[in-house]
């Protein structure tokens, strides 16, 4: 009987370890129907750039603000400033930086590091 229980214990331990490895590492649970707040930083940045370009197209600062609020950031202007400065520091695409700088300026968050990239203004504000 001891042999039987010992074998079942060894099997259980091995099976449990294998199951946890498969479930956590090899085939972790993939989420769908996720909220936009859980996007990885790369795609949050990409979304922010898209919204900045949209702001340049329509000059609708309130609309851009509402769209960025979906990301769950408590302070949108500070968030845009952070993303913009990170893009500049990491030498990301100049076009994306120009979009972000325009939005940061619209939100009153233009900082000295952004000045050289201040090239674009919303189409509706152009003379």
């Amino acid at each position: 009987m001891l042999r039987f229980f010992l074998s079942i214990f060894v099997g259980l331990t091995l099976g449990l370890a294998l199951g946890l490895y498969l479930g956590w590492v090899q085939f972790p649970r993939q989420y769908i129907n996720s909220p936009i707040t859980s996007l990885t930083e790369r795609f949050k940045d990409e979304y922010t750039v898209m919204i900045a370009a949209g702001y340049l197209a329509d000059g609708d600062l309130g609309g851009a603000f509402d769209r960025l609020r979906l990301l769950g950031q408590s302070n949108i202007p500070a968030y845009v400033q952070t993303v913009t400065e990170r893009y500049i520091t990491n030498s990301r695409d100049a076009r994306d930086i120009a979009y972000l700088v325009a939005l940061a300026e619209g939100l009153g968050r233009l900082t000295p590091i952004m000045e050289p990239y201040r090239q674009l203004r919303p189409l509706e504000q152009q003379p």
Partner: protein
Amino acid sequence: MTRPDASGNLPPDRSSKYRRPRSPISWAALIIGLIIGLSAGLAYAWLLNPVEEYDTEPWQLSDQDRANYIAAITLQYSYDGDLNLAVNRLLALRLTGDPIQSVADIACRLATTSYVDNNSGIHAVRTMMTFYQLQGRAGCADTLLAASDQPTPLPTIEAATPTLRPPATKTPTPPAQSQATPTLPAVIIPTIRPQTAYALVDVRTFCSVEFSGVIEVRVQRSNGDGVPGTGVRVRWNDGESTFFTGLKPERGSDYADFQMEAAKAYTVEVLGQSDPSQPLVAGPCTTDIGGQAITSYRVTFRPG
């Protein structure tokens, strides 16, 4: 001949299991334990304590947030007109079927919700409409938003009693002291409108299991004769390929083709002699007999 022991029992045979050394492991119990352990481990890892949600990609978003993401894609498109970038972002969303038609469907859904209760939402849906209309697609948002475009009749306001003209100011206006500076005539240097030798005159899709995901390019003269040896360039998100017409003479001197990869978008151009085409998306399609294939394209260039 074996003899019985004191109790009268015969000793077991040499091949009997009672004579073999006993295995320290019960294999049956081990396998039962393994199965139970594996099931318990997977249940714990997937259901009770799954890995924290991180590195979520856009395709994993909920329907509503995916719609918001698509609106953002078309908003950027409305500013920079970068169709290739927009299509690649749509492909990353793993939308079922034609990604551009999916934009039309999502715009339709948004146009029926409170999303269009404010100007920002209306503008976002309009950018989606512009995006898919330019690609030759249509959706119910076209009619829903068009109907809401009807001008609201303005209320007629009775003119108020005319006000008296204000008295002239007592301070005389000083005469102008400065003389106008003559404006120098502007010199405009005429620029030559960019000319392209070839223009894309025809793009057709077809669905074939045999020729799945192929771009068939024909470069022709104005009268339809083929032009062999012409360079054709195909570009996609992270690469490009150049090839020449006439290398498959059995298909004609004007013919060249390119094999696409599924779920990628490609532009085609006559090398240095035409503008790039609109992105050709290698989306799934179903043949007439129900076979699954990738959409193929026939494109024709002629002198522009």
